[in-house]
């Protein structure tokens, strides 16, 4: 039977990469000297599974490499080896190597053989000490085989009474033996007790078996391999005696035989003279050579993108879905029945049914969305390693705290937020946290703290990155911005505005460009990425006390809570998250500045009024502000009042991309299809505010 093993590869790679993440986070959590046994065990198991799988699926080089790691971990597990920083560092490096190897195997590209063998060597040195080389291991691999041609074997097989309780069965063993050659079995019942004393679950019988044919002793031993310890077993060539295999009780009999028939013994002794064959001792070096053979360049093969974009969904989410679908079916059949006979009485029932359908649909939608939701720990898990590496490199003491790791967010959002988060955490470590001595001098503990926190707030997920470092020096930022020509020296900026300068393109305050951060690209990209996800980013900082960066992101990119608004005959959707309030206009509070913006006095603040009918060139019901409504919105820190004719309902809308279906339109972030089948545009508040400013400038 031949089975195409490649069908299991995808699963193997997925679980192996997961296993590597488990190993990595486990290793990072290990306390040197007092390692938690369960953690070591978990790391060991991950390595063990990778080794088992890679061996089975034919990735020999991976299996060989993992074997060394596994051996090391096994020694740590059973306590015969201390967990040292050195070992943990090396194991972390090995995890990286293994990840590279698996990636290479997966994409069918080349493995960096030199790199792999150098780390493998280091592991072996750690394992065996400096002097050990390959040959030492090979010695135990020697196998001794006995030569024998056609022969007749006499086997005495006396199971211990509990043999059956191991699931072994003498009958099956005989069946196996029968495959080897001619055999005769004689059952001995000497040990059989009286019927009344019989325990039906015990084995009292024993057997003498005569087996003839071209059979080697190992073949017979293999049949009895599993019961070796559970029986008295004696295998010998017929008519001969092999002293070492004769049990004590049989010895006198054999001695007697020798006396009686000395000639026979002599001849058979010649036959049984064991000729020991020794296998070549350099087996290990051979296997290394063959490993290298296997990973030889296969450059003709293209690296295949193996990201099939699969997602793991917990059973309870699937169960909830199935449950939902069940209810949907019930509702459907109920409505179906109503549809068969419609009269006035059934109207009420119909309405009930439709309400139920609506509820079902909404719940189903929510549950389907939940499938895409993953805990943010997927994005957080890379940080312990990164912080460890960076603090080592920079010579800083840093404690990383992760909070709210179970907070869920959309997989797509998670993928896109990963890199910006890395950048921000790097910045906190590089620019925020001071050197231990500086911290001590400033009266702070030597160990700096970087905290990542995630939680839900309304329809958003909020991620906070807090550090207790030196904070952002307002003056340094400001003078740097002036130097870069981003602001003028006379500008009077609020703290927030100054901090916001950090996100300006080409801004970097690092005194020296380090390889950790400070290349001057990044923060602006971070901000842009977050904006693209429909989120925003804020910095709060106090000099000497630390900084806090807050990122707010929508939970999902596919669905939006929207407020429907009407301008003339058209319907638009304003994302609910950006609406602050909606109000009727009091004429006294509107200030029109000639040729410039109309301003609305909202309590103590003046906000510009954006007339949607002007921006989109529409025919509104009325152009008089007091006839309509003002929707106060906020986008990217700026507020504005959208002038609309009317507010309509609020509803969740499914976002359809305008860019892929049409082309990007200023002031519009997407479109959706409403219940009546018409298309409504979703407003991009930030873009809209910009657009209205431009129009005013052009009009002026």
């Amino acid at each position, binding site marked *: *039977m*031949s*089975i195409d*093993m490649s*069908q*299991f*590869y995808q*699963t*193997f790679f*997925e*679980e192996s990469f997961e296993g590597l993440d488990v190993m990595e986070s486990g290793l990072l959590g290990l306390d040197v000297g007092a390692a938690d046994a369960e953690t070591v065990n*978990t790391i*060991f*198991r991950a390595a*063990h*599974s990778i*080794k*088992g*799988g890679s*061996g*089975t*699926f034919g990735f020999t080089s991976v*299996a060989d490499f993992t074997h060394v790691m*596994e051996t090391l971990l096994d020694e740590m597990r059973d306590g015969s080896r201390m967990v040292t920083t050195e070992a943990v560092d090396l194991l972390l490096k090995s995890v990286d190597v293994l990840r590279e190897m698996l990636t290479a195997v997966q994409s069918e590209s080349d493995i960096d053989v030199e790199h792999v063998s150098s780390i493998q060597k280091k592991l072996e040195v750690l394992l065996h000490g400096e002097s050990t080389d390959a040959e030492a291991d090979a010695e135990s691999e020697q196998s001794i085989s006995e030569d024998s041609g056609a022969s007749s074997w006499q086997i005495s097989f006396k199971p211990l009474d509990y043999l*059956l*309780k*191991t*699931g*072994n*069965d003498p*009958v*099956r063993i005989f*069946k*196996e033996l029968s495959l080897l050659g001619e055999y005769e079995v004689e059952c001995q019942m000497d040990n059989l007790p009286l019927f009344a004393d019989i325990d039906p*679950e015990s084995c009292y019988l024993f057997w003498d078996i005569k087996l003839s044919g071209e059979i080697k002793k190992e073949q017979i031993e293999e049949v009895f*391999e*599993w019961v070796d*310890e*559970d029986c008295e077993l004696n295998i010998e060539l017929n008519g001969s005696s092999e002293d070492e295999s004769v049990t004590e009780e049989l010895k006198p009999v054999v001695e007697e035989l020798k006396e009686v028939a000395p000639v026979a013994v002599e001849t058979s002794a010649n036959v049984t003279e064991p000729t020991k064959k020794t296998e070549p001792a350099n087996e290990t070096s051979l296997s290394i050579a063959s490993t290298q053979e296997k990973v030889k360049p296969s450059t003709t093969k293209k690296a295949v993108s193996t990201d099939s974009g699969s997602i793991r969904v917990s059973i309870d989410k699937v169960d909830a879905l199935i449950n939902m679908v069940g209810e949907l079916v019930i509702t459907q059949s109920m409505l179906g029945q109503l549809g068969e006979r419609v009269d006035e009485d059934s109207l009420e029932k119909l309405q009930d049914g439709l309400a139920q359908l609506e509820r079902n649909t909404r719940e189903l939608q929510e549950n389907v969305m939940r499938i895409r939701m993953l805990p943010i720990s997927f994005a957080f898990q890379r940080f312990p390693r990164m912080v460890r590496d960076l603090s080592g490199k920079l010579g800083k003491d840093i404690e990383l705290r992760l909070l709210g790791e179970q907070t869920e967010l959309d997989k797509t959002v998670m993928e896109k937020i990963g890199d910006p988060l890395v950048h921000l955490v790097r910045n906190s470590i590089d620019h925020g946290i001071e050197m231990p001595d500086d911290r001590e001098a400033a009266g702070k503990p030597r160990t700096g703290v970087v905290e990542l926190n995630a939680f839900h707030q309304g329809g958003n997920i909020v991620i906070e990155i807090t550090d207790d470092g030196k904070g952002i020096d307002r003056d340094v930022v400001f003078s740097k911005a002036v130097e870069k020509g981003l602001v003028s020296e006379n500008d009077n900026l609020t703290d927030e505005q100054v901090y916001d300068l950090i996100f300006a393109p080409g801004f970097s305050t690092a005194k020296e460009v380090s390889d950790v951060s400070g290349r001057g690209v990044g923060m602006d990209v971070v901000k842009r990425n977050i904006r693209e996800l429909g989120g925003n980013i804020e910095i709060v900082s106090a000099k000497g006390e630390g900084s806090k960066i807050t990122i707010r992101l929508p939970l999902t990119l596919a669905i939006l809570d929207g407020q429907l608004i009407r301008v003339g005959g058209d319907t638009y959707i304003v994302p609910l998250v950006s609406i602050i309030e909606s109000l009727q206009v009091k004429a006294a509070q509107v200030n029109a500045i000639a040729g410039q913006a109309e301003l609305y006095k909202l309590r103590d603040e003046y906000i510009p009024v954006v007339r949607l009918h002007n921006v989109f060139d529409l025919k509104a019901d009325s152009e008089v502000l007091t006839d309509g409504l003002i929707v106060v919105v906020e986008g990217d820190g700026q507020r504005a009042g959208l002038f609309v004719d009317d507010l309509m309902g609020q509803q969740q809308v499914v976002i359809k991309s305008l860019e892929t279906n049409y082309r990007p339109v200023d002031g519009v972030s997407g479109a959706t299809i409403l219940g009546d089948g018409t298309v409504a545009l979703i407003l991009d508040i930030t873009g809209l505010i910009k657009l209205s400013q431009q129009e005013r400038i052009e009009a002026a």
Partner: protein
Amino acid sequence: MAKILAVDDSASMRQMVSFTLKGAGHDVMEACDGAEALKLAQTNQVDLVLTDVNMPNMDGVTLIKELRTLPNYKFTPMLTLTTESGTDKKMEGKQAGATGWIVKPFSPDQLLATIKKVLG
């Protein structure tokens, strides 16, 4: 056709074992650790248990020990899937009541040949 319980925390190994056995006409149930396997075995009588040794929650050796205490599993063949060719690990399984073992890595053919030994 036999009813076989395959226990391994590695999904790919489980898939491979299960696929091979199903291909040979057996009825296969899968469990990802000893605890799950024990529950399954209690509600479904199986003819053979194939279990990995190192698993979270409950390891293979404990699973076998637990199963052997059940009247229905006194004589059921149970094999461990072990990567250790050393005798220690094999004996640990045997002492718990395992029938025998299969050393990883094994090919589908080796697997089928081995289970033939115990399914009779």
